[in-house]
């Protein structure tokens, strides 16, 4: 059974196995004390989705407020808390854990033919850490909120703000350790738990990108953790680190913060790229063009990603030498990203492309990530960034890469592996409709923001000058887009939930895709495979020896 499957579909009607990981044991405790990576993945799915909803509600408040130039809906204080909550929740509690902790958790052992991650208990502990961090975050929100922005810049955060900075920082600190332990688990698992024959050059690209992501999690996250610790010490005990009144240098905070937070944007996008590689291959029925290059590009992005953080600080009177260096290195990081984009495109070329719903998301990703990435390069050019730094151009840039990129990849991945996770099929027409709505809504929301930013509208503004008429027009477009986008996100919640109960059985391999995860039943048994699989073929062994 672990022989490599070719593309012919099983024509017999697909069935669901009697016993699988979802019904192997029962009761709430069997979930809260589970060590099964697949169940932990589901715990993450529920909690991460909840945080996405929270972050999304804050986003809607932002867009409502900005529909008119006057600060009429929310007071300035409230607005500042709202965008901070939106940023903190979306970054630390949604996007960073999204793909790795849900899809990665579920798929890394399955894809390499292992029974579980190397440290199942640490895996469960990661989820509890994540929840604990989340509780601190929520405690900060309900007790009045924070208004520092997700970047916590000093000395505002340590000396001026009188909101719940400490609670939030502690929440992010704890969530950081969750992410560290997830990364650690993945790396050790990939090194030591591969099935016989699963050599490094046969690993699915999803695994490669998670490997690279995990490296960043381990090398970067501790730095932001200790930085937040210093921030808390300065705020509570008046230890001097960053506050000039205490002799400190506020710019040091930015260096330390971005040493993590730039690499962190690759924590956010690399797993998405892994998802895209899988989907593109499966729905083009071709191996990913230039497999080795794409795998190495993941490592390249992770490594170079550590050398560019200064591009967030061009206007802090950074020295010219440092600015030029950081700018140059930021351009360099485009090369591995470009390799990926070009190789995906080359994979599509002459493939038998099937426009199933995951593929729609994947194609959306390629287009939107390219726009987001290229505008990132605009920002990496010092002269342009001086103008566009802290304007809506930056906001548009990062929503293109984070929402247009990672979030679409996340949705694509959820759709692609949903039959594996639940054993059920969802409604394709609804899924395609949602994908199109998301794509349209997204562009309507964020494209106008590029224009706004170029015209000079600063970010984190609760009100904007009334005399700039075009600003209001563009902002209204953006707000309108956001409501379309919100609908696009609600739809999958409905039809996916429905399918989990009412959907038709999916069978082991509904897409006719290649990969170890498709060789076991859907849903898989608790131990993943009846027999440890033996791998004899390279990854994406579609249409061997043919063109």
């Amino acid at each position, binding site marked *: 059974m672990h022989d490599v499957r070719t593309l012919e579909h099983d024509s017999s009607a697909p069935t669901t196995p009697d016993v699988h990981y979802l019904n192997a044991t029962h009761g709430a405790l069997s979930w809260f004390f589970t060590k099964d990576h697949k169940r932990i993945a589901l715990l993450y799915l529920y909690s991460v989705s909840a945080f996405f909803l929270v972050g999304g509600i804050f986003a809607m408040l932002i867009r409502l407020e900005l529909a008119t130039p006057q600060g009429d809906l929310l007071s300035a204080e409230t607005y500042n808390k709202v965008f901070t909550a939106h940023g903190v929740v979306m970054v630390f509690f949604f996007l960073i854990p999204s793909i790795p902790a849900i899809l990665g958790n579920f798929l890394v052992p399955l894809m390499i033919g292992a029974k579980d991650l190397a440290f199942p208990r640490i895996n469960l502990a990661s989820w509890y850490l994540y929840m604990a961090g989340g509780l601190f975050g929520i405690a900060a929100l309900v007790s009045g909120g924070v208004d520092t*922005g997700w970047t916590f810049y000093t000395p*505002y955060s340590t000396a001026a703000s009188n909101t719940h900075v400490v609670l939030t920082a502690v929440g992010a600190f704890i969530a950081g350790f969750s992410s560290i332990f997830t990364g650690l688990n993945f790396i050790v698992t990939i090194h030591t738990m591969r099935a016989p024959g699963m050599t490094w050059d046969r690993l699915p690209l999803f695994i490669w990108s998670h490997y690279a992501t995990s490296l960043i999690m381990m090398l970067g996250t501790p730095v932001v953790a200790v930085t937040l610790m210093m921030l808390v010490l300065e705020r509570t005990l008046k230890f001097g680190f960053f506050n*000039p009144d205490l002799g400190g240098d506020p710019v040091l905070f930015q260096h330390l913060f971005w040493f993590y937070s730039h690499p962190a944007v690759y924590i956010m996008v690399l797993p998405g790229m892994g998802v895209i590689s899988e989907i593109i291959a499966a729905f083009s029925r071709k191996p990913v063009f230039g497999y080795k290059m794409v795998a190495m590009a993941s490592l390249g992005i992770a490594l170079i990603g550590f050398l560019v953080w200064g591009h967030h600080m061009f206007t802090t009177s950074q020295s010219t030498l440092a600015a030029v260096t950081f700018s140059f290195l930021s351009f360099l990081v485009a090369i591995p990203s470009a390799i990926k984009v070009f190789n995906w495109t080359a994979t599509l070329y002459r493939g038998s492309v099937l426009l199933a719903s995951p593929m729609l998301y994947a194609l959306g990703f390629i287009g939107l990530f390219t726009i987001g990435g290229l505008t990132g390069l605009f920002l990496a050019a010092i002269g342009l960034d001086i103008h566009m730094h802290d304007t809506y151009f930056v906001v548009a840039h990062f929503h293109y890469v984070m929402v247009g990129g990672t979030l679409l990849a996340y949705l694509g991945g959820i759709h692609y592996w949903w039959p594996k996770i639940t054993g059920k099929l969802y409604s394709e027409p609804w899924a395609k409709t949602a994908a199109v709505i998301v794509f349209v809504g997204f562009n309507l929301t964020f494209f106008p923001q590029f224009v706004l930013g170029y015209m000079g509208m*600063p970010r984190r503004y609760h009100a904007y000058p009334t005399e700039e008429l075009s600003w209001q027009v563009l902002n209204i477009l953006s707000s309108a887009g956001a409501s379309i986008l919100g609908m696009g996100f609600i739809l999958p919640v409905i039809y996916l939930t429905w399918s989990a109960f009412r959907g038709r059985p999916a069978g082991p391999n509904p897409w006719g895709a290649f990969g170890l995860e498709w060789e076991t039943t859907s849903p898989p048994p608790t131990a993943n495979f009846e027999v440890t699989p033996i791998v004899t073929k390279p990854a994406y062994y579609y249409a061997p020896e043919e063109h």
Partner: protein
Amino acid sequence: RWMWKAQHLTGHREINQLHVPVGTPVKLLISSEDVIHSYYIPAFRQKMDAVPGKTTTMWFEASKPGTYQLFCAEYCGTQHSGMIGKVVAMEPREYQQWLSGGAPAGTLTSTGEQQFSTLGCATCHQADGKGRGPSLVGIAGKAQQLANGTSVIADEAYIRESILNPTAKMVQGYAPLMPTYQGQISEEGLASLIAYIKSLGTSTPGSGPAGTTAPDAAAATAPTH
């Protein structure tokens, strides 16, 4: 907090405004008294953070006369989006005129109001009386208690004297902090100021710049040649 103070080489001060001559490179030395802000003039494609404890610099050369937006670009708290102003680029000749205090347009009171902020009176004279100097709201025509025990009616002459020779008649309860403006204000300017101060007594309070809060970030502008 949340306002831009500017001082020119000549000693001219202004708040949330910056007057510059066109065709001349202008250099700003920027700093902050509390948190990080950022001096942003989109039309000039220029921006520089105001970092407390540091002095940063930025320069530009305005090429077209006009009034341009001035924003604070670095998030700095509640009134971040209110920390905005105008950069006025003028023909060099008008700029000289402006420096000498003769603003070409506007009613006497509105010019005076402008003068009151550009000359920095507002930094000490706040409407709520919390500044270093006494509140000027409603003083015109009223009796003022002086430090030497006597009192005097605040008429035009007194106001004029207070501006040009502040120590001559000291208000009770205040230190002799006020600099003399002798030779720095043209006759017209002085007149407009007096008119403005007189108007403070009648118009609704808080309409003038005297209502602004304590200074925060300072930008010193120096036209270089």
